[in-house]
């Protein structure tokens, strides 16, 4: 064989750890870095920035957090959308066929309350619409330039904003992962014909890290949190229409008009500011969760470098508000 060919052989052998035909190496630990309000809220009713449909709004308003105490919900994992709005890092591992070294899939490892995702790169077909759904759903990936585009379906009904807004089991999540040096930008698009009036777009930034806190999926054993729920399993905690006691909290604390708190497609575009100008009055000062440098003495400290990784958010399984 020629010298050139042998050089190529060795080149390929030594680079065989990189996924075949991969445009960019996405593998590794990625610590959440973005400093935004994705996914969290201090207010029980908060749909701002979400283009919810009428059904999505009504479902969110009927939600009573005591429902989390039902046995089945205590250990319920979040949807794949949690990748963009949850607090956890990402661990991405390529899986290659042991014989051909062809890239079969990327695994985005499960973490805390988020199930593992397998992103199939081998062009396999999507499951039947009649197939059961899982927490992680079914994902396929393709390269668009140097971005990996992932489409996920077949995931369960679950949160699109933690304990505030719900996505249905007919939702589709499309997200692209684009690496810029040591940063990974994830742009997520959630489409839901049931609970969204138009696609919900969020972004998140992660940084390649070797020192990420580790909070793996662990076994979860539910307990009997609220005796009356377990004595009568037919009970379903919910708020009747118009009776959610927390509807006006965000307006009261932050001056945001109720219409905006209720979300909807109109509220996410710049022209909505014209409507807000006359109806919004900023509070005199920030009252809670104001951020600032550590030790500022007012409100919760801002996220430290490394994002919001670490312990899971409060609220899961907590007793319902009195």
């Amino acid at each position, binding site marked *: 064989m020629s010298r050139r060919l042998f050089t190529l052989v060795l080149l390929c052998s030594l680079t065989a750890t990189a996924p075949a035909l991969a445009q960019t190496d996405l593998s590794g630990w990625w610590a959440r870095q973005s400093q935004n309000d994705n996914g969290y809220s201090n207010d029980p009713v908060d749909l701002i920035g979400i283009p919810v449909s009428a059904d999505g709004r009504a479902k969110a308003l009927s939600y009573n957090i005591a429902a989390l105490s*039902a046995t089945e919900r205590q250990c319920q994992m979040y949807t794949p959308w949690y990748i963009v709005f949850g607090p956890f890092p990402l661990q991405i591992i390529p899986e290659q066929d042991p014989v051909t070294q062809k890239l079969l899939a990327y695994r985005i490892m499960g973490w805390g309350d988020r199930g593992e995702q397998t992103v199939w790169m081998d062009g396999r077909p999507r499951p039947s619409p*009649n197939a059961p759904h899982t927490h992680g759903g079914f994902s396929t990936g393709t390269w668009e330039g140097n971005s990996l585009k992932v489409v996920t379906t077949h995931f369960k009904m679950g949160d699109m904003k933690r304990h505030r807004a719900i996505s249905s089991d007919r939702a589709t999540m499309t997200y692209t992962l684009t690496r810029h040096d040591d940063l990974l930008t994830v742009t997520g698009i959630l489409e839901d014909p049931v609970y969204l009036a138009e696609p919900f777009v969020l972004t998140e930034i992660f940084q390649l890290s070797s020192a990420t806190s580790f909070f793996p999926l662990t*076994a979860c054993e539910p307990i009997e949190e609220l005796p009356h729920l377990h004595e009568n399993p037919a009970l379903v905690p*919910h708020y009747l229409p118009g009776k959610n006691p927390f509807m006006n909290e965000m307006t009261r604390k932050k001056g945001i008009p109720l219409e905006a708190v209720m979300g909807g497609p109109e509220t996410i575009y710049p022209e909505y500011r014209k409507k807000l100008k006359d109806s919004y009055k900023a509070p005199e000062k920030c009252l809670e969760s104001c951020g600032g440098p550590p030790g500022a003495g007012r409100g919760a400290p801002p996220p430290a470098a490394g994002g919001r990784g670490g312990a899971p958010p409060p609220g899961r399984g907590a007793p319902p508000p009195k």
Partner: protein
Amino acid sequence: MKRPIKPWKNAAAGSALFLTLLSGALGWSGRAAAQQAGPADGLDVQQLRPNLYLIAGAGGNIVAQVGPIGVVLVDSGSTQAAPRVLAAIRRLTPLPVRYIINTSMERDHVGGNDLLTSSGLSILPGAVAAGAGLSDTLVSNAGKASVLAHENVQTRMSEATGANAYPFPLWPTKTFAFHSYSMYLNGEGYRVIHQPAAHTDGDVVVEFRRNDVIATGDLVDTTRWPVIDTARGGSVQGTLDALNRLMDMTIFNLPIQWNDDRTLLVPGHGRVYDKLDLLEYRDAVTIVRDRVEDLIKEGKNLQQVKAANPTLGYRSQYGTDRGEWTTDKFVETMFQELSTRKPGGSGAAARVK
């Protein structure tokens, strides 16, 4: 599929194990689903367990359990689809259909009884073995596969007349009258459990004990609100009781929550559920019931209750405005029952204040 926790450093061993597990994974990962899809016959055959299949697209969902003696079916789809269903079964196994269990008397669940039993084989002996004076028709369904249903199914079928009459070959050949009927057949333990006054008065759910699958019939329908046929003995409370009973019978994948081991539920129509899906469904029906009840307490009449849209938040997910069983019909049926219920009934106590 069990998936042990793998130390993140041990990527190579993890990869090998992952791929080994991958090759043995259940079929819905996509590739297996593609393998099971037959020709363009409008049917969707999904392998749920190694010997258990869903056949969708034949009217109501059909569950086929394939074993050493042949095939046991839960429901048989519509009459029009029966030839395609038979062809689909033949692609799974050359063995005959031995038994059909009907979950109700709905025509899209019993319509294939004739063809599928005729092409099958009875588990019972012929008349000669049973004794003189008894015909094969009586003893062994003339050698055809048997059909099991609750007694009320047979009663309703026999009462139907004129255009609504059920041809005799669709009727069950074996019935039971009380709570449940159990049997071991084809290597599987079957519990056929009556759900009184639910969708109708003749509904059963069929539990495959070894496979941990439950065929729910039309008690669960992912394409519309649960149909409540009051003319044939159905009721709102009975439906809710049945859904709660199903919750008790179902096991979710805890405590190893990334594990795929869990009870699967095959609804009368639509996709396969598990306990969490059933929970959402049960909750939606309960919440609508609570809302209608509350509106009735406020003195609202039917038109006012409909105008208040008590299904808002759940309507797009579970309801439809097409066909015979629309969201409006569902609300009407609820209103009729709840407005005649005495105050302080079980529904009133169910809501958390």
